[in-house]
């Protein structure tokens, strides 16, 4: 039988399929951060269970960590306790933790690929919905709840229902300054935030093959924003080149064996998907969200819609609510929306390539008056690399803040947040109400679009610069 990549990974990880029970699948890699793990460790302790395979776990601290004055104690006592609990739990269970002071520290989904911890064909989980990021390597990677974190620690398996498969094929080539982020937002706008529910999406086509590994990570990262369980890109030479030589990548004979396995994972010619969506890259323009859901998005040349533009009553009402929350008037040009704060960072767009393109746009200009611009590298390694290339100077000279790594304003748990009514252009993944601070208004964009908005003080079509 011809199989999709998802089906190949699923079949090879099936441990047992007992009658009347959910299939149990094996988990190769388990990623961890401080927010969704403490209750799982507590559960293990109460039940007197142990972590089955400590070597399968890589942990970091990212959600609550400060992005400035890192040497000072964490001011928020509850966050401080969460950070300390993470350190204690990792120590007592013998887990590999990149704590706040570790040179490898950063956002979990940025750090993990840097060390080659995820390979094609693996099953990867984390108590974090953006685990989908690692699908960029052809790994089946998905977010789980804390009870499941405990389950995986205790058993190295998860009861899972098999997903349906969706192929999203992007033909043609992206225009300059149009990025993986714009593909992700276009897809979410087209199929909706529930469009991928119950599915694993495989992204394919010319535009996807041409994406860098960083771009593929951005794209797969936002599979969850389209409701999908996971996103996948078939491994290819770019994947192998990226992995080669990293800390957890096999070497010598093992490299050859691994490579042969990875190459066998690609979807068989003629394999069937449950759903197929085809888009053309030339039709994708830089995207800007206008509402409070990632599906409320349009091209930069577009207008903020009016509730009456939607046939569906629920979408129409959601539009009305979003316009009120966002403080926007229907039929405003996207390029007429002013911004107060720019955030470049997160597991979606906090990698070196994101800062390179933003620096290219920023170079020689100044951040507009009354605009605050914050650059938060996804990891210390991204930060160091950017500094070696002099990107930090470009940002600082233009009036940006150059911060320490962390999740920061993506979800505003660490004190970096919008104030009521403040409007951001953000390279993160969610524009939900209050996501970046209560009453804050988030517009999701690519790094290039964010950098251009910082200079202009409003959204601009990056292709015209």
């Amino acid at each position, binding site marked *: 039988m011809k199989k999709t990549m998802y089906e190949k990974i699923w079949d090879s990880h099936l441990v047992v399929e007992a009658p*009347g029970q959910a299939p149990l699948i094996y988990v190769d890699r388990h990623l961890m951060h401080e927010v969704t793990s403490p209750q799982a460790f507590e559960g293990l302790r109460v039940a007197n269970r142990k972590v089955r395979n400590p070597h399968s776990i890589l942990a970091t601290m990212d959600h609550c960590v400060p992005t400035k004055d890192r040497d000072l104690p964490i001011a928020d006592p509850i966050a401080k306790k969460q950070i300390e609990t993470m350190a204690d739990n990792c120590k007592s269970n013998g887990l590999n933790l990149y704590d706040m002071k570790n040179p490898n520290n950063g956002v979990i989904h940025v750090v993990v690929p840097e060390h080659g911890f995820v390979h094609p064909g693996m099953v990867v989980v984390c108590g974090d919905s953006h685990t989908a990021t690692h699908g960029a390597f052809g790994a089946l990677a998905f977010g789980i709840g804390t009870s499941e974190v405990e389950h995986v620690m205790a058993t190295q398996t998860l009861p899972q229902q098999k997903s349906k498969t969706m192929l999203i094929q992007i033909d043609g080539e992206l225009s300059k300054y149009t990025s993986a982020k714009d593909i992700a937002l276009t897809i979410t706008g087209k199929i909706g935030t529930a469009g991928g529910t119950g599915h694993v999406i495989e992204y394919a086509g010319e535009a996807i093959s041409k994406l860098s590994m960083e771009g593929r990570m951005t794209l797969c990262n936002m599979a969850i924003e389209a409701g999908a369980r996971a996103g996948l890109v078939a491994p290819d030479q770019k994947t192998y080149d990226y992995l080669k030589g990293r800390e957890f990548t096999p070497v010598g004979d093992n490299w050859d064996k691994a490579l042969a396995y990875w190459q066998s994972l690609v979807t068989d010619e003629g394999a069937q998907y449950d759903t197929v969506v085809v888009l053309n890259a030339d039709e994708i323009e830089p995207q800007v969200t206008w509402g409070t859901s990632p599906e409320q998005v349009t091209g930069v040349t577009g207008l903020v819609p009016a509730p009456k533009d939607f046939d569906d009553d629920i979408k129409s009402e959601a539009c009305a609510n979003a316009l009120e929350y966002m403080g926007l008037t229907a039929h405003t040009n996207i390029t007429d929306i002013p911004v107060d704060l720019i955030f470049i960072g997160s597991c979606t767009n906090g990698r070196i390539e994101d800062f390179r393109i933003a620096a290219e746009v920023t170079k020689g200009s100044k951040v507009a008056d009354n605009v605050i611009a914050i650059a938060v590298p996804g990891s210390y390694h991204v930060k160091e690399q950017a500094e070696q290339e002099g990107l930090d100077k470009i940002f600082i000279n233009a009036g940006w803040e150059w911060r320490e790594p962390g999740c920061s304003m993506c979800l505003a*748990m660490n004190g970096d947040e919008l104030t009521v009514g403040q409007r951001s252009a953000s390279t993160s993944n969610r524009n939900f109400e209050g996501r970046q601070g209560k009453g804050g208004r988030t517009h999701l964009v690519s790094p290039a679009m964010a950098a251009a908005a910082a200079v202009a003080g409003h959204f601009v079509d990056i292709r015209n610069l």
Partner: protein
Amino acid sequence: MEPYKKHQSIVALMKRSNVDTDQIIPKQFLKKVERTGFGKHLFHDWRFNDDGSDTANFELNNPAFTNAKILLVGDNFGCGSSREHAPWAIIDYGFNTIISSSYADIFYNNCFKNSILPIKVDKKKLAELMDEVAVNEGVKFVVDLENQQIITPAGNGFTFDIDPFRKENLLAGFDDIGLTLKHIDKIDQYEEKHKQTYPWLWN
């Protein structure tokens, strides 16, 4: 886990779609290291004014819905973040049943780990149920998981689908990890093979 029992309860109506877990439990409450005590923060930013008083128009502040155990809500409930704090807040607040036309995958799985029954009905049925509650706030439904049945006061009983394994676990209050560990031999065997096939993952 608490076994899920047949009950007759008030139905709270939230006519909203795409309710994300950031709304169910906002991020400022995710710093705790315990599983309990999240109910008082459920829907915090929609439910409370800055001074801590109840907001005027939020559905759950409607006195008719006090003590509701059933939440009737629009499509794609629980989308976004994987935070299990969302079902922890829901069960701690007092809901043990949700009725919607669809759920986000991770949230749906998380419900079953916390003795919450997320019932899926088709969009037409959801609209009918919403209409029934809207004109009769404070109405009670009977939820009978054993027979996969909901009975509304209008006398309309209807059945719903649920995965039999999940149903059994909810009814019995089984611990998932305990169930999985019954297959420990199979896991050991799989792992032995895994070590031979992918030795580089075991260094």
